[in-house]
């Protein structure tokens, strides 16, 4: 099933122009977004999170247009969560940060506490509930931001360089957790500069070169994994550049 589809997107931002003739994200897949500094990864992720509007083109969520059908944004946004490249934590306790999104979704106190505890365990911060966000190390902050997104269990999880400040053990733990998400039906997009990461997480590649998106068949397809058979051409628009 197609979860998100971008068509003929042009997003101008200063002198930078993001162009996405066509991009398709399917439900229950894991995507690795690659590209040099300034190639537009974060911009694309903000677009996918419906935070930034394109000058032209349309984004379809579950085959419904989004930007042109104003007003339904918020409900859509509750199914898409982005962890930004330098995430901001709200002032206060770690618990409050994680509770923010859960409260908006109407969870009860017990459910919240449960989900918060689980999410913190995943990022290796069990017991950090009462810590103030002002007194965390760089890696701990990033992990709190990750947990804050994970506990919402969105349909589409967008991660902008999630492992940039994590230590080796945490990277490994997170990667193994993330690779399990597609099975649960979640779609994950990870922007990364770690050249080996896409392979480790077995992700389909999306490559950005100077604002031009090209979607590349994943290595797993090339190596013939039956679960992800090529039911339609994946490469769409622009010159497809195959890199690892």
């Amino acid at each position, binding site marked *: 099933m197609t979860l998100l589809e971008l068509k003929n997107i042009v997003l101008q931002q200063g002198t930078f122009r993001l162009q996405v003739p066509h991009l398709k994200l399917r439900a229950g897949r894991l995507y690795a977004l690659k590209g040099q500094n300034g190639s537009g990864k974060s911009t694309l992720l*903000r677009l996918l*999170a419906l*935070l930034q509007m394109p000058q032209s083109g349309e984004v379809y969520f579950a085959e419904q247009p989004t930007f042109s059908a104003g007003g339904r944004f*918020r409900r859509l*946004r*509750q199914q*898409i*969560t*982005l*962890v*930004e490249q*330098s*995430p*901001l934590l*709200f*002032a206060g306790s770690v618990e409050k940060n994680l509770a*923010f*999104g859960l409260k*908006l*979704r109407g969870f009860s106190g017990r459910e919240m506490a449960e989900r918060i505890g689980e999410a913190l365990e995943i990022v290796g911060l069990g017991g950090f509930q009462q810590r103030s966000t002002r007194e965390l190390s760089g890696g701990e902050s990033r992990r709190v931001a990750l947990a*804050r*997104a994970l506990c*919402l269990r969105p349909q589409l999880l967008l991660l902008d360089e999630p492992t940039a400040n994590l230590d080796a053990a945490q990277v490994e733990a997170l990667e193994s957790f993330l690779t399990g998400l597609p099975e649960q039906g979640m779609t994950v997009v990870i922007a990364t500069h770690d050249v080996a990461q896409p392979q480790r997480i077995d992700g389909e590649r999306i490559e950005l070169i100077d604002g031009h998106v090209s979607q590349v068949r994943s290595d797993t397809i090339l190596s013939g994994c039956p679960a992800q058979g090529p039911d339609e051409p994946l490469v769409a628009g622009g010159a497809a550049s195959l890199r690892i």
Partner: protein
Amino acid sequence: MGYLGDSFITAIELILGFDREVQMTVWTSLYTSGCATVIAALLGIPIGLWLGLSRFRGRRLLITLLNTLMALPTVVVGLVLFGLFSRQGPLGPLGLLFTPLAMIAGQTVLATPIIANLVLAAVSGADRRIISTALTLGASHLQAARQLLREIRFGVMAAVIAGFGRVIAEVGVAMMLGGNIRNSTRTMTTAIALETSKGEFAFGLALGLVLLGVALLVNLGLNIVQQR
């Protein structure tokens, strides 16, 4: 001058003596300024948020106008509202003139631009990621704005306190719209003005000290609320 010392003693006497009339004046001051500050906050905070978060043509001009409104003299507000509330004015039939309600209206006009401006300043200085973070966590724009307010609460509190300070200390509106009627619309400041015009400097100053004491208590209270 002798009266500086005298006034201290008088102030303490006034407070300890629980003078009925002084209590009444303190209450009128607190009541009108309190109501005006609350209404002004309910108006000014959304205005400040809106101006701080939106981008449109003419926004800078609007901000400059709002800045200018901070220089609104109390007498001007008094005159304009007097024109509205007076028997011959459009709102005359309501009979609001020389009642606490008229004073609240005037003080609200004074405090709203102050609160709006200072909230705007706080929003402008805030991290831009607060809103987008709240949005990606599933908040509506309104909920995101509320979270922003929570993050900049120190600035918002300063704005409200500045607005409160302005209205509890002001005398022009209270005088013109309230009328400084004994046991009815006499506030601390109009009482001070009256005593001063009588030449009762020590008594006037004593009332001033009582007023500052009351303001201190209010601020201590807000402080405790804020630290909760």
